[in-house]
């Protein structure tokens, strides 16, 4: 038992008397994501800032803003016969690009002793995509706060810019979008706006099982209805060298179940957490994911952590490798060059460090927090699958939070 008696008394006092709730919290975080590749590297810089404030005893407001600054090269045609035959890879026409996606959001919350309600809105925009999101969630504690039931619902109203394919006789005639230059402009005829409606419902239950153990279980049901292909991507299908625009079904229902456990290990001044998730959708993509995390105090203010994640998925029912699309043709009327829809194994490992400072004497702030994180990801994909030249990625993250 390394937690001192004084610390235990303080923790018990916090448990009985309520946590120190800051009236205002401001936090900022920057993530650098790099996926190296000789032909199609990708780099994303993702800064985000969030501010929340209490409005009296029961209510609160929050607002946030984030940007994705994406640059690199992207494969716009999957399965070029010449390049595959030459043994380069299954990617043709890698095109350099630089793009920005921005999102602004705001929300309101009401919290009573046992119930919390929250609602929010966000707007995301980029050159070829617009997204409006409405979200609502409710949380309730019961049985002497040993259980917390949460329900969340999110509705997305998205618009995607696409090539005007009104003259196409069938899916094989679909042309890919060449440029985002005319997207969302009035009076242009070469591009059109396609809608995507997404409903996401997420129930979950947290159980305080013992004085040291938290258990959580829940699920996700998501229905996506609308244009879900990449408008730019072409896929070589059949032996005649045709490369129409990617074509995937317009309806997708996704189901996930998960369980999580977090155990306090006071003897080591730490905690252990594990998570398992099973997933399946109506495109017959099946996946299993497992996570583990260790957290440990070093002194009174520093928390170090190590975490890992393993993800295994099958491909969607209409997915084929580049060679199979060319030799066997498509599966029905659908074809894709999306790595997300291909068989994939991913192993992630990472480290975290958090520094917390809570001043002993009353001052202008209540708590200061500094976080850094570093992850390495390793992918195992089909040899001639989409983006098979990208073997892994690195993520670096740094964040700071101030509570007043």
């Amino acid at each position, binding site marked *: 038992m390394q937690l001192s008696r004084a610390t235990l008394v303080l*923790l*018990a006092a*916090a*448990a*009985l008397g309520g*946590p120190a*709730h800051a009236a205002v919290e401001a936090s900022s*975080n920057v*993530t650098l*994501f790099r996926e190296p590749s000789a032909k199609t590297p990708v780099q994303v810089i993702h800064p*985000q800032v969030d501010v929340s404030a209490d409005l009296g005893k029961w209510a609160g407001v929050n607002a946030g803003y984030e940007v994705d600054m994406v640059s690199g090269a992207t494969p716009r045609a999957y399965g070029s016969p010449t390049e595959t035959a030459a043994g380069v890879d299954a990617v043709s026409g890698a095109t350099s690009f630089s793009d920005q996606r921005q999102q602004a959001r705001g929300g309101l919350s009401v919290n009573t002793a046992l119930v919390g309600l929250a609602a929010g809105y966000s707007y995301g925009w980029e050159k070829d995509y617009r997204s409006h999101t409405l979200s609502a*969630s409710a*949380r309730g*504690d*019961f*049985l*002497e*706060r040993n259980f*917390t039931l*949460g*329900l969340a619902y999110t509705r997305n109203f998205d618009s995607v810019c696409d090539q005007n394919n009104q003259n196409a006789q069938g899916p094989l005639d679909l042309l890919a979008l060449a440029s985002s230059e005319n997207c969302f402009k009035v009076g242009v005829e070469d591009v059109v706006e396609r809608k995507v409606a997404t409903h996401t419902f*997420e129930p*979950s239950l*947290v159980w*305080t*099982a013992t*004085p*040291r153990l*938290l258990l*959580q279980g*829940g*699920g996700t049901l*998501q229905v996506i209805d609308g244009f879900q292909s990449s408008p730019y991507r072409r896929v070589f299908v059949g032996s005649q060298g045709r490369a129409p625009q990617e074509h995937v079904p317009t309806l997708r229902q*996704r189901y996930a179940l*998960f369980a*999580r456990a*977090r155990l*306090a290990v006071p003897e080591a001044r730490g905690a252990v957490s594990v998570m398992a*998730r099973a*997933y399946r959708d109506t495109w017959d*993509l099946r*996946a299993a*994911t497992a996570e583990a995390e260790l*957290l440990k*105090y070093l002194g009174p203010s520093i928390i170090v952590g190590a975490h890992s994640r393993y*993800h295994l*998925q099958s491909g*969607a029912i209409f997915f084929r490798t580049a060679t199979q699309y060319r030799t066997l043709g498509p599966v029905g009327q659908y074809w894709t060059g999306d*790595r*997300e829809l291909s068989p*994939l194994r*991913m192993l992630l490992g990472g480290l975290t460090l*958090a520094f*917390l400072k809570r001043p002993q004497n009353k001052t202008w702030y209540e708590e200061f927090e500094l*976080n850094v994180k570093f992850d390495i*990801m390793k992918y195992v994909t089909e040899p001639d699958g989409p983006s098979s030249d990208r073997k892994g*990625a690195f993520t670096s*993250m740094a*964040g700071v*939070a101030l509570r007043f």
Partner: protein
Amino acid sequence: MASRFFSKALLVLVLAASGCAGKTHTWLVKPHQRAYLADRIMRLDANPQQKKADQHVLVYREGAMGGDGTAGGGCGCN
């Protein structure tokens, strides 16, 4: 018959959930037993911004989604 059974079951559930059933649940974790659970490292939502950024990276790599859940547990004192 069945509707009467379900009505009684619902009533018991509501009373139990509201803590008004008049019975002490010895198996429940009491506030004074939550010292370890109140620690920051036991919070399921200790860093929501970092968690959001993590999900942002993973959702573009994996074909699956979900499993985030809602925060809860901890000291249960707010």
